[in-house]
Structures are given as structure tokens and as C-alpha cells.
């Protein structure tokens, strides 16, 4: 009696999770790139994206999650987001402006330059937050009880 019950237990949650997680990640992307127009932005999108992966990890186990996003990837992404943010600043210096002065990113229309700058900076924030939250989850969930 015990075994089939466990099987069924697995099924309901897994099916629902499989249905939900793609939409959660899609929603995270929406929040990320729609942040200029509605509530949202890099911080929120990063946390939601990480929450989607954490849900996967909770339901399917940490080992499976590590196969999807390896620990090494996380470590690289934590730094990559911050570097992307800094690189936008350096790029604006290279294009003749001040640090993080996005207007120079588009020579024809400063408003577009501002939009590009915000887009990339938010993307950097989003990547760092996602990776940092996942790294923290890995660290806590992957540890055996002392």
C-alpha cells in the first residue's frame, strides 16, 4: 500500500510543477524586460527566476537541479552579471561619456541610448541576483545536517 501511494504523491506535484515552471521562467523574463513599463526590473526578475529554479529543486531534488544549472555555471553567472553592469559603464566611457552615462550609447537619439543602458544594466542585475539566490539555495540545501 505504501509504495503506490508514494508514486501517486510524486505524480500530482510533479505534473503541476512541470506545467508551472516554464511559465514562471517566462514570467521572470516578462518582469525583467517589461520593468521599464510596469512594476518590475532586474531585482524582482532575478528573484522570481531563482524561485522557479528553487521550486524545481524542491520538487525534483537538488541533484536534478544541479544537472540543469551546474554549480560552476552559477559561480560564473554571479560574477558575470556584476561585470556586465560595470562593462556598460566602461563602454560609456569608451564612447565619450561619463561612467554609466547612457546617453552616448546611441549617437542619434539620446533617449534610445538611455533605454539601452537601462536594459543592459537591469539585465546585469537580474543575472547576478538569480545566480546569487541560487548559489545561496545550493549552499543551504546541499549541506548535510551536522
Amino acid at each position, binding site marked *: 500500500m505504501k509504495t503506490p501511494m508514494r508514486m501517486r*504523491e510524486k505524480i500530482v*506535484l510533479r505534473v503541476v510543477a512541470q506545467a508551472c515552471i516554464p511559465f514562471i521562467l517566462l514570467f521572470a523574463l516578462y518582469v525583467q524586460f517589461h520593468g521599464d513599463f510596469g*512594476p518590475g526590473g532586474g531585482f524582482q526578475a532575478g528573484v522570481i527566476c531563482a524561485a522557479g529554479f*528553487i521550486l524545481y529543486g524542491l520538487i525534483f531534488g537538488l541533484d536534478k537541479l544541479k544537472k540543469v544549472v551546474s554549480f560552476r555555471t552559477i559561480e560564473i553567472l554571479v560574477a558575470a552579471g556584476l561585470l556586465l553592469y560595470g562593462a556598460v559603464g566602461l563602454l560609456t566611457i569608451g564612447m565619450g561619456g561619463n561612467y554609466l552615462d547612457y546617453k552616448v550609447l546611441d549617437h542619434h537619439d539620446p533617449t534610445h541610448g538611455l533605454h539601452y543602458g537601462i536594459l543592459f544594466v537591469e539585465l546585469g542585475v537580474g543575472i547576478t541576483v538569480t545566480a546569487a539566490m541560487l548559489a545561496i539555495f545550493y549552499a543551504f*540545501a546541499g549541506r548535510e*545536517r551536522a
Partner: protein
Amino acid sequence: MFIAAMVGVLVTMLLALVAAVRGPTVYDRILAVNMFGTKTVLLIAVAGFLAGRPEFLDLALVYALVNFIGTIAVLKFARFGSLGRDDHRGLL
């Protein structure tokens, strides 16, 4: 009439809060907290209409999502005392 819905939701939140504080077993508390979460979703949705700016429904969606994740995490913890493992002991 949004007010009536709002009052209903708030009263339900109060009842859920009492249940969460009182709940004799862990599962009663989880149940009450979960219910409280869905009521906050409704609260945000109704509050948006009440304030005349119902554009911020993304928020309500996030609440629903986060509430689900929180419930699953709490449940997994309550059952197995650990978050990361899935050693074929059955899931929740």
C-alpha cells in the same frame, strides 16, 4: 462593492491569522498560512481596483507563485526535515 469584497477578504485574513497562531498541529498552521497567502492575492487584486489603478496585477501573480513555493518548501521541511534531498523516499 469593492469595499464589501475587501472587508470579506480582510475578515478571512484575520480568521486565517487566528488559525495560524492557534493551529494545534504543524499542518494546521501550514494550511492557515497557505490560505492567508491566497487571501493576500485577492487583497492586492481588489485593492488595485479600489484605488482605481488595476494595472498592477503582476503583483498578485507573484504572491500566488511565492505562496505556492513557500507552502511546498514548508511541507517538504515538515515531512523530511531537509530541503535538498530526493532520495526516492516519496515526494510530499
